[in-house]
């Protein structure tokens, strides 16, 4: 383990402890740092109740989940960047509530994708990336330091060392479509959130697409399922 990784991990542990109020800077109990908003159904499953500035999150392959996670920050005026995901559907993101004018696209970052992500972390609030190759712990730790310094959030479609949490979508269900009739109206799925800090994975149903996902009232209907045995 290199020094950079060790320092990053220790710093993360100190920050975790600070957030939980165990250590207060200057003797006071630290207030929880503000988080980047996420759809309520997702937020209640996340360890911090939202996306933690400086944190990296590993997502499964669900494009709808990514669009949903970019919706709130971009609509609130934060800049987002989507790197290495050429099929990112900007129109669906708008349907989910995102502001297309606040999303920068880097569809083909090529072999220097990590440098691109590093440059974006300097100025953009949320960076979504599909890695163009394997990432070592040392590289991830260097990037994590930069993210923390700037308060940016990294969303990774794929595997990522030192991810704050892993978000997987399973049991997708679609409404409106029949056997040869109807048309797609909405989709829901079970979201499984596995936090790095341990604890059992948390599961809950979320609306993936459709009117239920776009309207805030609809998001509230996403009720967490009772915890089931971890497979």
């Amino acid at each position, binding site marked *: 383990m290199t020094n950079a990784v060790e320092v990053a991990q220790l710093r993360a542990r100190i920050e975790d402890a600070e957030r939980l109020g165990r250590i207060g800077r200057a003797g006071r109990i630290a207030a929880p740092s503000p988080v980047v908003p996420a759809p309520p159904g997702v937020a209640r499953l996340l360890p911090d109740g939202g996306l933690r500035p400086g944190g990296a999150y590993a997502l499964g*392959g*669900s*494009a*709808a989940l*990514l*669009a949903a996670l970019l919706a709130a920050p971009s609509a609130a005026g934060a*800049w987002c*960047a989507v790197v290495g995901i*050429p*099929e*990112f*559907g*900007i*129109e*669906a*993101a*708008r*349907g*989910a509530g995102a502001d*297309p*004018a606040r*999303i*920068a*696209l*880097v*569809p*083909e*970052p*090529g072999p*220097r994708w990590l*440098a*691109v992500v590093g*440059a*974006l*972390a*300097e*100025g*953009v609030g949320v960076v979504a990336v599909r890695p163009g190759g394997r990432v070592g712990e040392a590289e991830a730790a260097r990037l994590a330091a930069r993210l923390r310094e700037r308060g940016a959030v990294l969303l990774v479609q794929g595997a990522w060392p030192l991810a704050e949490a892993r978000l997987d*979508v*399973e049991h*997708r*269900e*679609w409404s409106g*479509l*029949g*056997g*040869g*009739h*109807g*048309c*797609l109206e*909405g*989709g829901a*799925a079970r979201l499984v959130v596995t936090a790095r800090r341990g604890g059992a994975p948390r599961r809950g149903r979320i609306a*993936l*697409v*459709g*009117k239920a*996902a*776009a309207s805030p009232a609809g998001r509230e209907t996403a009720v967490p399922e009772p915890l089931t045995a971890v497979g």
Partner: protein
Amino acid sequence: MERCLVLWFPDWPIAALGQAVPTDAPVAVLSGNAVVACSAAARRAGVRRGMRRRDAQARAPGLRIAAADPERDAREFLPVVDRIERIAPGLQIVRPGLAALRMRGPARYYGGELEAAEAILAQLRTEGLPAARAGIADGRFTAEQAARRADPEHAVLAVPAGGSAAFLAPLPVEAIEDGGLVPLLAQLGLRTLGEFAALGAGDVQDRFGPAGAHLHALAGGRDSRRVEPRRPPPELAREIDFEPPLALADQVAFGIRVAAEEFVARLAERRLACTELRIVLADEAGGRSERVWAHAASFDAAAVVDRVRWQLDAATAATSSPDALRDGVAIVRLEPEAVDPIGEHEPGLFGGATDDRVHHALSRVQAILGHRGVLTASIGGGRRLADRVVLTPWGDRPPREPGASPPWPGSLPEPLPAAVPPVPVPAAVEDALGAPVRVLDRGGITAPPARLRIGGAPRAIVRWAGPWPLVEHGWDPAAARRAHRFQVVDETGAAWLLLLEDGAWSIEGGYG
């Protein structure tokens, strides 16, 4: 507020065609497929600006058509400017066919504003120049509007000092000639400059940014330009030497592109935008061409390059003129003649207010990947999902204001697929017996789809709907495309939007 005289030569692109066409023939100059200028005869026949070629030809059957050429317009205009300058020095070219002059000097010399304008027009007539109109008002914008509305008999329209707002109020909003803002104002129900000017300045600044605020000020008759233009510091000027000298305009234009960008960027660093630009061209044989160009808003790098090209074109063509160049260009000098303070950023360039950090980060990525490496998307028209998205490199102006997309018949209902491959991915759809599913002539299908193949192993289709016909360019048999859309959910829980075109299946989008 400074009194200003604007000289307007109506239908300049037609006049620039010169002897090539008879004066009484119907002639139109087209850019793309739209009329940008037409002769008086064509106008009498009903041809108007903005009209499509086919409509214009229908109105005036004998219509002669010429392609628009801004360089030709500039080349023909600059000698005219030289002749006006002999009567009244200090002329600024706004664009070919339109020139502005500070009123104070000529008014004092000729003993009055109207007298000065009449004298200049009379002189132009004796020199056989095309009919010009003159407008006199506070500020260049109002004077230009006045010149355009001067009646052909008197040819001079003066708006009294302080009367700009009242003069402008009844004019249509199209007068501000801003392609992005005018449709938006029309959507807001604002038809006249007066209605636009009545909006609160703060609201306009919030919604339309500094560029909108500038136009708002113009519409209200408050031209922001000072009486004495602020002389920018001389170190902002930029000189480019060519060794060896360059003979071709294209080479020069290419050679100054980077310098023009730096020139504009250095002004922007000081929160200044160049509104009047002095360009000096010199060759090694002692030839020298010097002109001042004005811009309605402010010069960006591309506009600077255009002006250099126009000036160079005219200077090499006019061999007899005192400012002719006889040899290749050795020196190009750009001097900001007048500047305006700007807001946070060059407005409209980055889709609204963008803070420096974002711009810096995205520009750095462009430095790594190239200009087209970072894109912003706006949603335009079209039926296919991949066609609807308009991608613009970061820093370039988006093609139109986003949010103005008209409803498209046959477009997909919400929700839309979250994954849209830029190029459709080939797939195969089979019925229960393994035969490919096809759509019959009457809109039915050969058999219900049972399996979906995307590259690897087949997946069972559990639910589906379709076909929905998709007809594009149905009016044109050569370009017409017919396809059918299906929605399917496969056994893994993934939902897809499929396209069947000419017997081939592909994936247009994924909903997951």
